[in-house]
């Protein structure tokens, strides 16, 4: 299965439903940190441009706040596509977004367990 097919399968999203209105990008709190913007992400999947998606930082910038999923008028769910791309990255060894050695330096006194759990889920297998 091609990477794009995998992304479609994991996300369960049909990117062809997109009408390119940009409401996802207008709603995205991480827009400025993303090199490939949410609405572009959909187009990249349509165009089968996996290399660009793999090199992009965007997969690590999505906060899973679901604002794009909530507001998308076409039920495209860009957030699910981005998360699927992230899944494909972390399923390849050496591609994780966080290594265990980094963690001690990041901890602080008040940090809730929930943050560590969530971060592990988002950054690693």
């Amino acid at each position, binding site marked *: 299965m091609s990477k794009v097919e995998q992304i479609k399968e994991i996300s369960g999203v049909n990117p062809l439903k997109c009408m390119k209105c940009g409401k996802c990008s207008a709603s995205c709190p991480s827009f400025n940190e993303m090199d490939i913007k949410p609405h572009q992400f959909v187009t990249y999947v349509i165009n089968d441009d996996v290399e660009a998606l793999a090199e992009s930082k965007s997969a690590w910038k999505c*906060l*899973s706040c679901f*604002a794009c999923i909530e507001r998308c008028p076409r039920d495209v769910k860009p957030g699910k596509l981005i998360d699927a791309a992230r899944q494909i990255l972390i399923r390849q060894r050496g591609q994780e977004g966080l290594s265990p050695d980094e963690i001690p330096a990041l901890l602080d006194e*008040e940090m*809730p367990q929930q*943050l560590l*759990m969530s971060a592990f889920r988002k950054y690693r297998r």
Partner: protein
Amino acid sequence: MKYSYFPGCTLRNKAKDLDDYARACAEKLGFSLEELTDWQCCGGVYPLGADEIASKLPSVRALNAAKKKGQDLVAVCSACYHVLKRVNDDMANVADIQTRANNYMQLDTPYTGETKVLHYLEVLWDVVGFDKLKEAVVNPLTGRKVGAYYGCLLLRPSSVMAFDDPENPTILEDFIRALGAEPVMYPYRNECCGGYISIKEQEKAAGLCKKITDSAEGFQADCLVTACPLCKYNLSKNSNLPIVYFTELLAEALGIKEAQE
């Protein structure tokens, strides 16, 4: 009324307040939370991928345990509530996940989403009733201007969460009003605080939190209430505005907080 209770990892230590007050207030309001005996962490985030089964199993176990007890399952933490409710929806409506999860679990009878997942606030709203809650208040928070901070996880995606209007929710405002305080409406109460990103990108989270707290302060809020330990952590770290758990506010109004202190 007895409910199965899923406290979640954070409520066991860093957010002990959230948990203690929730239980104490429940007793005072006439319902009780029976903690599931061997719950496992929900994972903090809902696994979005259609093929992620293993990471959904802890939630399925909790849901099935509640089903066996014949009770609704209550969570206080927004993230636990979010994950449990969405996994439950998958188990009820997504045939592939349902089959594969049940294959793993090897239960006597398959679990197909029978348990009702409730947030503590929903119990207050639907079962206790905010009018009854108002009557139970001994220490009304008169004069306090409280902003509700919903964040993402309680509300979105509304098609599954069905918690409140995803853009203009009112349940926390009604709750604040029932406690005698004045709710402060501000537009960013459902915008993201940054969530897990704060582990690696503090500045990013700081920017998002500032937008939220500035807006709340602009509308004259004295403090914000939240149901999520991670939201509380992010917001507190990046603002001087007091951020409190909704259960703490509840305990204060019910006169439990002083008693415990």
